[in-house]
C-alpha cells in the first residue's frame, strides 16, 4: 500500500520532470494571464457588447443594434452628436500639439547635456514636473491661469493681451491652456529620454564628423538624431498614448467647460456613462469603442515596429 503511493508519486514527479520545460512557462504565466484576462481582455469584449445596448447600468439592457453608433456619428436622418464632434476635434488638437513635447524635450536635453557643477541637480529639477500627479498639475495651472489675479494673465497683460474670461474661461483658448499644462510634464519625460539617449551617442562618430567639418544643426540632423532613433520612438509612443488618454487635466481644470468646449472623447465617454447627465452606459461604451479604434491604429503601428525589432533578436 505504502509502496504503491510512493510509486504513484514518483511516476507523477517523473511526468512533471519529463515535461518540466514545457509546463513551467505556463505555470509562471497563469496568474498574470488570469488577472489580465479578467480585468483587461474580457472587458474590451464586454464593452463592444454593451455598445449595442441601451443600459442604465442597473436594470435590464435592451438590444438596440447599431443605434448608439448611428446617433453618435449621425448616420441616417440625424446630425452627428455635436458633443462628439467637438470631442473628436479636440482629440486631434491634443494629438498634434502634444507632439511638440518631443522637439521641446530634445531642445532642453541638448541645453542640459553638459558637465558643469550641479548639472545633475538641474536635470532632476527639470524632470520633476513629470513626477507630480496630473491632478496637482491641473490645479497648479488653473491658479496660474486665474483671470485678473493669475500670474499668466498678468504677464500677458504686460504686452497688452487681454483674454476675455481668462485662459480657461474662454471657449476659444481653454483647450490650448489645458494642452499647455499637459505639455509641461510630457516635455520633461521626453527630455529625460533624450538625455539618456545622448549619453549613449558614440563619441568616436561625433569626433569623426567634427573632423569632417560637421557642426551645429547639420551635425544634429545627420549624426546625432539617427543615433537617437530608439529614444524618439519611445517618445512618440508615450506622447501619443498620453494625448489620447488626457482626462485628469480636463476634469480638474475645466470639467469639460466652458460650454463643453474642452471635452475630449475620454472625458465625453465618462460624462455620458457616470455623471449627472445620467447613466447611459450603452452610449458611453459606443464612444469608448470609437476611441479604442483610434488608439488601435497607433497600437498596431507600435507593435509592428516592435515585431520588426524582435525578428532580429534571439
Amino acid at each position, binding site marked *: 500500500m505504502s509502496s504503491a503511493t510512493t510509486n504513484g508519486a514518483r511516476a507523477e514527479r517523473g511526468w512533471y520532470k519529463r515535461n518540466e520545460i514545457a509546463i513551467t512557462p505556463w505555470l509562471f504565466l497563469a496568474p498574470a494571464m488570469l488577472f489580465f484576462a479578467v480585468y483587461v481582455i474580457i472587458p474590451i469584449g*464586454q464593452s463592444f457588447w454593451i455598445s449595442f445596448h441601451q443600459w442604465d447600468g442597473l436594470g435590464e439592457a435592451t438590444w438596440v443594434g447599431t443605434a448608439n453608433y448611428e446617433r453618435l456619428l449621425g448616420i441616417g436622418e440625424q446630425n452627428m452628436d455635436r458633443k462628439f464632434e467637438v470631442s473628436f476635434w479636440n482629440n486631434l488638437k491634443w494629438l498634434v500639439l502634444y507632439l511638440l513635447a518631443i522637439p521641446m524635450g530634445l531642445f532642453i536635453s541638448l541645453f542640459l547635456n553638459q558637465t558643469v557643477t550641479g548639472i545633475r541637480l538641474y536635470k532632476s529639477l527639470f524632470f520633476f514636473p513629470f513626477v507630480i500627479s496630473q491632478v496637482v498639475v491641473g490645479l497648479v495651472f488653473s491658479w496660474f491661469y486665474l483671470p485678473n489675479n493669475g500670474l499668466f494673465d498678468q504677464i500677458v497683460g504686460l504686452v497688452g493681451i487681454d483674454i476675455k474670461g481668462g485662459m480657461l474661461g474662454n471657449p476659444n483658448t481653454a483647450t490650448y491652456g489645458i494642452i499647455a499644462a499637459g505639455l509641461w510634464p510630457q516635455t520633461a519625460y521626453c527630455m529625460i529620454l533624450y538625455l539618456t539617449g545622448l549619453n549613449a551617442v558614440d563619441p568616436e562618430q561625433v569626433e569623426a564628423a567634427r573632423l569632417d567639418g560637421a557642426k551645429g544643426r547639420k551635425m544634429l540632423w545627420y549624426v546625432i538624431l539617427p543615433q537617437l532613433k530608439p529614444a524618439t520612438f519611445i517618445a512618440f509612443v508615450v506622447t501619443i498614448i498620453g494625448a489620447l488618454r488626457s482626462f485628469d487635466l480636463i476634469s480638474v481644470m475645466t470639467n469639460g467647460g466652458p460650454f463643453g468646449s474642452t471635452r475630449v472623447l475620454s472625458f465625453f465617454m465618462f460624462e455620458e456613462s457616470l455623471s449627472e447627465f445620467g447613466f447611459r452606459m450603452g452610449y458611453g461604451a459606443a464612444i469608448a469603442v470609437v476611441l479604442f479604434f483610434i488608439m488601435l491604429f497607433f497600437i498596431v503601428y507600435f507593435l509592428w515596429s516592435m515585431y520588426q525589432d524582435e525578428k532580429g533578436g534571439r
Partner: protein
Amino acid sequence: MFPRPIQQQSPARQATYQALLPLALVVWLLPLIAVFIFSIKPDADFVSGNFWGIPSSFEMFNNYGKVFFESNMPRYLFNSLLITVPTVIGAVALSAMAGFALGIYRFKGNLLIFFMFIAGNFVPFQILMVPVRDLTIGLGLYDTITGLVLFHVAFQTGFCTLFMRNFIRALPFPLIEAARVEGISEIRIFWYVVLPLMKPALAALAVLIFTFIWNDYFWAVVLTQGPDAQPVTAGITEFNSQFRAAYHLMSAGSIVAALPPVAMFFLMQKHFIAGLTLGAVK
C-alpha cells in the same frame, strides 16, 4: 559628446551658460514656485488682492497644520498608501513570473501572449470602465481599497511584463543552460539564478509603479467615492470644496498630495530613470 562641451568654448559663452541655467530653471518651475508661495501666505493676502507679491506674513506652519489636522487629508494619504503598496508588490510579483516565462522559454504563442500584454497596456481606460466597474460592484468591492488594488495589479501587469521580459531577455542565457545541466529544477532557476539578477529591474519597476498608482485619478473616481477608500488624488477635490477659494490651504493641500512620489523620485532617482528610459538606448 554633443553638443560640444562648454569647457572648450570661450569664457564669455561659459559665463552666459552658467547664468542661463538657473534662469531657465526658474522659468520652467514658475507655476510650482507660485503655488509654493501661495501655500505660505496668510488668507488676508488673497482678500487684499496680493496674489503674487511678497507674503505679508509667514504662515507656512499654520497652513500646513490646518491641512493635517482640520481636514480628511491624512485619511486620504493613508488610503493612497494602502492602495499603492499592495499594487506595487502584486504587479511586480506577477510580472516577474510572466516575464521569466516569456523571456526564457520558447513555446508556441510566446510572442502572441507578449504582444497581448503590450497591446492591453496601451488600451484607452474608457473601454474598460463600464465592465470593470460592473465587475467590481458584482464582487462587492465597489468603494473598497481591495477593488482598486485588484484592478491596478491587473492593468499594471501589462507594462511590467513588457519591462521584465525585455530585461530577462538581456541576461546571459548560458547561465540558465549551465544551471539546467547541473539538474536544477526550473522553479529553483527562477528563484536562485534569475531573480537575484533582476534586482535592478525590480527596484526600477517598484518606483515607477508607485508613482503611477499614487498619481492615478481616473480609476479612483470610477471605483470609489468618499473618504473611506478614496486616494489623495480624488480626495483633493473634496478638500478643495471644503476650503473653497482658500487658495493658501488648497495649494498647501496640493503640495502635500504631490510630495510622496516626489520624495520617492529624489531618493530612488537612478532606478526611476533607468525604468523610464528602458529601450531608449539600444
